[in-house]
């Protein structure tokens, strides 16, 4: 039977391996419609904006909620790396999670139907995408070769047919497409009605615009690179949080040998944000992306950067070095990237590898070497 067989995942939904991170300022009513698919899972709600507002979570969902006061309390002075009044604050949820996989979704996204009328189980499809290999080294013209009913085509090298681990699964949206403000202004009535029934790996060395509305990733592999930048209040730019994270995460994945997929699953994006507001928010980004993109396209990470965190630290240095001349904002961003990694490593101390400890007992760091890697109390 052709298509993605999600029955296995639907029967055993891996709820111990997944956290669903949702940034919100208003309400979580949208979760009512998602019950059949998301109710098994633990939610991490990141409440942006006014912390005194009480966000009501629909009955039956298991969740933890963090508002700005919580973020400040948990991170202390490092809280300044988390955006305020911008969806980029969601990456705080990535940091406090302890799960293998993260799924993040916007609060104006609903369940879509496939062409047969069947409701789409986004989380099952994302898990399937993350648990099956990617093929970034050679493009398969029949798209995902691991899908039932398809395969590698003639001429696809056999040595590349095992694929690599998938780190990111980027889903799409029916109805309101993810357009920038100028495009929204020119095409206010355009709706995405085209259901493209495919998942594909984005080739190595190729960049793409990663949208945070319907996104899943392997936190263990690439979590530290999923920093959504400095956006929103007090910052000169907004609506580039997921773009920044996407470009950074892609170069990190390419360097570490992981794959990034895009395509299914679709969800239904219901709300078109105000294009005039969007234009104000993103207009610096429209110019800066002309520099940001070549920056990411041309950079090369060093061999020594063999984890996502190390890659990201190296990336922060390159950001400061190469992009500050575009705008001083990037110097602030580079510093925030370092803060993010420091905060990440404090909340997520490196897992002890018992085997390697026998051979190489860890040297206790002294004050002069820097801070002890164990988390503070």
């Amino acid at each position, binding site marked *: 039977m*052709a*298509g993605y067989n999600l029955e296995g995942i639907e029967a055993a939904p891996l709820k111990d391996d997944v956290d669903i991170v949702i940034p919100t300022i208003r309400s979580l009513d949208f979760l009512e419609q998602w019950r059949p698919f998301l109710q098994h899972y633990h939610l991490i709600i990141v409440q942006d904006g006014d912390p005194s507002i009480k966000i009501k979570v629909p009955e039956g969902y298991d969740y933890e909620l963090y508002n700005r006061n919580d973020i400040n309390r948990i991170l202390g002075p490092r809280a300044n790396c988390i955006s305020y009044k911008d969806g980029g604050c969601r990456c705080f949820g990535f940091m406090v999670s302890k799960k293998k996989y993260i799924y993040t979704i916007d609060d104006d996204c609903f369940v879509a139907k496939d*062409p047969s009328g069947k409701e789409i189980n986004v989380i099952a499809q994302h898990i399937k995408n993350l648990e099956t290999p990617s093929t970034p080294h*050679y*493009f*398969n*013209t*029949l*798209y995902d070769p691991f*899908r039932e*009913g*398809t*395969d*590698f*085509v*003639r*001429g*696809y*090298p*056999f*040595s*590349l047919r095992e694929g690599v681990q998938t780190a990111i699964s*980027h889903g*799409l949206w029916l109805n309101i*497409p*993810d*357009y*920038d403000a100028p*495009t929204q202004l020119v*095409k206010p009535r*355009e*709706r*995405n*009605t*085209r*259901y*493209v*029934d*495919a998942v594909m790996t*984005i*080739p*190595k*060395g*190729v*960049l*793409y*615009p*990663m*949208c945070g509305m319907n996104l899943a990733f392997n936190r263990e592999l690439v979590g530290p690179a999923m920093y959504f930048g400095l956006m929103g209040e007090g910052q000169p730019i907004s*609506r*580039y949080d*997921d*773009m920044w994270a*996407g470009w950074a995460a892609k170069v990190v994945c390419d360097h570490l040998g992981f794959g990034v997929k*895009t395509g299914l699953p679709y969800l239904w994006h219901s709300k078109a944000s105000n294009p005039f507001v969007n234009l104000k928010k*993103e207009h610096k980004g*429209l110019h800066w*992306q*002309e520099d940001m*993109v070549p920056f990411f396209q041309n950079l090369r990470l060093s061999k020594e950067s063999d984890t996502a965190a190390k890659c990201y630290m190296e990336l922060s240095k390159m950001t400061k070095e190469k992009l500050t001349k575009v705008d001083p904002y990037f110097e602030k961003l580079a510093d925030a990237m370092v803060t993010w990694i420091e905060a990440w490593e404090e909340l997520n101390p490196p897992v002890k590898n018992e085997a390697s400890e026998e051979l190489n007992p860890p040297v206790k760091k002294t004050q002069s070497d820097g801070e002890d890697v164990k988390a503070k109390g």
Partner: protein
Amino acid sequence: MSSAEINKNEVDIVIGALNADLTQFLTSWRPFFSGFHLIVVKDPELKEELNIPEGFDVDVYSKTDMEKVVGASNATMFSGYSCRYFGYLISKKKYIVSIDDDCVPAKDPKGFLVDAVTQHVINLENPATPLFFNTLYDPYCEGADFVRGYPFSLRSGVPCAASCGLWLNLADLDAPTQALKTEQRNTSYVDAVMTVPAKAMLPISGINIAFNRELVGPALVPALRLAGEGKVRWETLEDVWCGMCLKHISDHLGYGVKTGLPYVWRNERGDAVESLRKKWEGMKLMEKSVPFFESLKLPETALKIEDCVIELAKAVKEQLGSDDPAFTQAADAMVKWIQLWNSVNSSV
């Protein structure tokens, strides 16, 4: 863009005839081939007379014609599936659309027959976007656009060199795969056209393909011939090699290659298990070709298609020649091909 909007005078439909009876093939394509000029090239090793139904604007070429144009010794370049390249050589049109003679029009999910010719020409006429991946695929089609985060400086795209279509029913799988999954048929209609990013390699199939002859004609080289090459696609790699050359040269010159729609319906022919009995040398050649193309850099001075092919042939001979005589032969064939192309098209 509808079929009324494309200029049929700019297109040649080139069909390589490996089967003598083209009645079913041409009859099924009649709604979409009518109004176009057809070039049918007969496999020089095919003994029977071709059977072509009435009502088509068609020129047929056979071994005799090949020998007249390129000489008897060079005519061997066009045997088997490579016969179609003779059609590419002598065509005078801007666009070529080429479909294997065991394919018929497919139906889309709504039940309508797919006009593969028009879709290919539309793909070729619209820009490609190889420098940045658009997550909504083709940004120029109705109902879609570039997404947020796509650099504006890259939104005008580049010329499209080739349009690689797909296949329902019998997909273009290799013999081991099809032999293992004898019952597998492709039923998945993926409603998208997309540009394959620059520097990404892919297997280009000759079963359902179109290209801009004016832009990249000489780069479609009939060069790699397997020792046991046969009359079913499972026993060839000529198009895969040709595609690797074409993609590399397109990337070098800043052109784009698209993949996706249109689909054709590919009929049953041959036996994958039978093909598997032959020594599968193609696998070895592919494994050697991939690292070669991955690391290859054509000189910046190679700005014309013909120069690119010559440089590529040089590199093949130098770096792959000692690995397998098939590569040396391919390199020689590529050089010969450019000579033929220049001499045949010198008056153009």
